[in-house]
């Protein structure tokens, strides 16, 4: 573990931190990501890309991308964090390193609106005929959109407790033990 931290730090002048007994975290500049990932894959044996996840930091006007890679021999995970600009989100395409990155990149393109130059199959992926802003961005108001688009059944407009709704309809008294579970 310490050996890996040392190697990463020396090669790229980074500060890798140990998070758990088998987890490392590296914060990397946007331009350096593909080099770090290629180094991890070819030199240190992190041959498997688990996942690429994305976090929307709307206050900082940034997206955070997390590349999770895994070494099956030593059972170590490395989380490569990077931040990109939110108003013009463009990230390097890494499907030359791992083919399966394509799926995650297509999903991020659709759900967050991040562009990957040279992405294969850069068309709609899971959603169909989506006309709003990408739905996983934090400034997309899911509840308001759902209320506008999908009609609620009368009587269940808000998520009030069913017991109270029934009580109102039937005129029955709600027993004391049930009151503490009600949401209002």
């Amino acid at each position, binding site marked *: 573990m310490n050996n890996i931290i040392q190697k990463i730090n020396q090669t790229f002048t980074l500060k890798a931190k140990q998070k758990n007994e088998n987890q490392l975290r590296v914060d990397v500049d946007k331009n350096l990501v593909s080099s770090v990932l290629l180094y991890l894959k070819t030199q240190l044996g992190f041959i498997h890309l688990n996942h690429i996840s994305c976090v929307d930091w709307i206050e900082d006007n940034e997206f955070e991308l997390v590349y999770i890679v895994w070494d099956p021999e030593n059972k170590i995970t490395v989380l490569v964090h990077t931040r990109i600009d939110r108003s013009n989100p463009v990230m390097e395409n890494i499907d030359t390193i791992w083919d399966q990155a394509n799926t995650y990149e297509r999903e991020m393109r659709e759900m967050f609106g991040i562009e990957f130059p040279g992405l294969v199959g850069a068309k709609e992926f*899971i*959603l*169909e*005929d989506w*006309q709003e802003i990408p*739905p996983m961005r934090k400034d*997309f108001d*899911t*509840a308001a*959109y*759902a*209320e506008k*688009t*999908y*009609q*609620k*059944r009368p009587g*269940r407009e808000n*998520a009030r407790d069913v017991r109270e709704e029934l009580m109102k309809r039937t005129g029955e008294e709600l027993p004391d033990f049930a009151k503490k579970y009600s949401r209002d």
Partner: protein
Amino acid sequence: MTKNPNTKIKTIGIPSEEEIRQAQIDFSPRCSSAGRVNDKETQKMVRYILDFARKHSLFVLAYGTGCGAIEIPATMTSRYDAERFGIRGAATPRQADVLLITGYLSTKTLKRVIRVYEQMQDPKYVIAFGSCTINGGMYFDSYNTINALDRYLPVDVYIAGCMPRPESVIKGFVKLQELIQNGNAGNGECYRKNLDWYRENQQKVIKNWNFPDEYNW
């Protein structure tokens, strides 16, 4: 060999209008009531027999839309054995009687479900399965799932629960059989009559009715 005097001697040539009419009546008995018993008692009896036969052979389209489909194998196999009630799977929508909507419907799936429903032949029944089809369930504020199914398709029976156990599923089917026997089930006509209303609701959700190229063969 003596000829039957009742048999008409047929001439070869262009048939007369009368012959064509008679042939049509003979060929398609439903088009005409000529020469048939048509009093109310007989109709009632025929209706009863038809409904009895229908309710004991419910072919369910093998199409799982949401997570609820996981209960269907359990319902169909030996422990709960839905085939006791005449419930069994059908491979294509044109062979099926029952469309079972198992769980949440995303708008993408709804488009396919409407297409499947419109392919099915009368009499057709819809069973909405799970609380997602009733009021959205746990996906009530999702951006991509519908809330109330009966705005988009007519529904015969709802099965509540998240998810309903095989007993409830069978209870729902038994309820459907009851409705069929009473003549209250079957919603194809209702759908056709109120097509404008259903289309209006469907178009609020489905923006583009074209299917991707791989669907249009």
